[in-house]
C-alpha cells in the first residue's frame, strides 16, 4: 500500500510537471523533454511485470489525454516499461538483491545512464515516428527524436542525481 501511494505520488508529480511545464518547451523547435519516461525507469528488480505494464500504460494514457494524442505515448511507454523489466535484469549481477532499485545509488552512474539511454532513445525514435506517421521527412524525424532523447536523458540524470542527495 505504501509502495502504491509512493508510486502514485511520483506518477502525479511527473504528470503535472510534464503537462504543465515540459510539454510547452520546444527547444530550437525540435527538442521536447519527455520526462515522464523516467517513470518507467524506476521500477525495482522483480517488480510484477503486469503492474509495470499497467502503470506505464496509464501514465502514457493520461499524458496523451492532456496532449490530445490518444494512444501515442501510451503505446510507446507500455513498450518501454516492458523492455525495462528485461533490460534491468540483464544489467544487474545475478546475485544482487531481489528488489534492487533502478537508481544511480544502486546501479552506479554508468549502468543507470546505460539503462536510461537504451530505453529513452528507442522511446523517442518510436514516439516521433508514430507522431509523424510517415518517413517522408526522415531528417526532421531523426532530429526531433535524437535531440528530445538527449534533453530527456540530461533531465532524467539530473533529477536522479538530486533525488540521490
Amino acid at each position, binding site marked *: 500500500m505504501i509502495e502504491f501511494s509512493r508510486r502514485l505520488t511520483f506518477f502525479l508529480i511527473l504528470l503535472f510537471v510534464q503537462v504543465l511545464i515540459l510539454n510547452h518547451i520546444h527547444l530550437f523547435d525540435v527538442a521536447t523533454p519527455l520526462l515522464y519516461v523516467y517513470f518507467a525507469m524506476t521500477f525495482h528488480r522483480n517488480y510484477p511485470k503486469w503492474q509495470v505494464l499497467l502503470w506505464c500504460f496509464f501514465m502514457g494514457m493520461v499524458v496523451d489525454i492532456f496532449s490530445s494524442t*490518444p494512444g501515442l505515448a*501510451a*503505446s510507446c511507454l507500455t513498450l518501454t516499461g516492458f523492455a525495462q523489466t528485461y533490460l534491468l535484469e540483464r544489467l544487474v549481477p545475478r546475485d544482487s538483491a531481489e528488489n534492487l532499485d533502478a537508481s544511480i545509488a544502486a546501479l552506479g552512474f554508468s549502468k543507470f545512464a546505460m539503462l536510461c539511454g537504451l530505453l529513452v532513445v528507442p522511446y523517442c525514435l518510436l514516439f516521433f515516428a*508514430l507522431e509523424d506517421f*510517415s518517413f517522408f521527412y526522415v531528417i526532421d524525424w531523426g532530429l526531433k527524436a535524437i535531440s528530445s532523447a538527449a534533453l530527456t536523458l540530461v533531465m532524467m540524470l539530473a533529477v536522479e542525481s538530486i533525488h540521490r542527495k
Partner: protein
Amino acid sequence: MRNLLDFLAKYHHWFIFILLEVASGVLLLKYNSYQNSVWFSSANAAVGKVYQWESKVIAFFYQSHLNEELTQRNFYLERQVDQLRQLYADLTKDTTQMERNGLQFLSQYQLIPAKVVDNSVNKLENLMTIDKGRADGVEVDMGVACGNGVVGIVYLVSDHYAVVIPALNATMSRISCAIRGRGYFGYLHWYGGDPSVAYVEDVPRHAKFKLGDWIETSGFSSIFPSGVLVGKIEQAYNSRDGLSYKLKVRLSTDFSCLRDVCVISDKGIAERAALMQAARDSIEMKINR
C-alpha cells in the same frame, strides 16, 4: 490443459502487453485524425489493388453481356444522331453546322476512362471505387458516367484511386436532372431497395411530361454537362406537401454490373464554381448590411 494454464500463468504479462499495445494502436488510429488519414490512404491503396485484381476477373465474365448492351445503346444513339442531323439539315440547310457544334461542345470536357474496382448496391450509403486518381487528373466533385448514363460524383481522391458517391447513395447523392425536351428540372434521389429505381423530386406542378419520357442531367450543377442520360419516367406521384411532382425513374445505368466508366473533367468547372461562390458571398454581404 494443465500445461496450457501453466503457460498462461507464466507468460500472462505478454498477453497484457499485447492487449495494451493493441488498445493504444486502436486509440491512436481512431482518435488522431492525422494518423487516421495516413492509415486510411495507405490502406485504401492496398485494398484498391486487391479489388482491382478481383474486378479484372469478374469483368472477364461480364464482358459479353456488357458488349451486347453497349452495342445496342450505340446503335440507338447513332440512329438518333442521324435523325437529328437530317432534321437540322432540313431546317437550316447547313449539313456541317451540327457536327461543328457537337465538336465544340465536347472540347469543353475531357473524359477520363476508368474501371470500377469496388462497388456495392445493397446498402443505403453505397460507395464505389475506381482505378483512376489524382495522378490521372481526377479531382473531387467531378462527374462520373458510363456508356448507359449517369453514375455518380467523385468524393475522395488518392493518387491512383478515387471514391465515387453513386446515384445509389440515399444520403449523399443529389444530382440535378431535367426532363428531356421539356426543360423542367428536379433532383435525383434514391431511397434504397431496388438499385434500378430512383426518384426525381421537386419537379414543378405545372410541368408537362408523359410516362416514358427520358430524364437527363440538367447541366445546372457544373458537375455534369447537360444531356447525360439518367433514366425513363415510369410513374408520377404528388410530393408529400403537394407542391411538386415526384417521378419514379427506371435508371438507365445498371449499377450491379458496372465496369467501365468515364470521369468527366470540365475545364470551366473551376471558373464557374468561383463565380458561383463570388455571387453567394455578394448576396450574403448584402443581406448582412
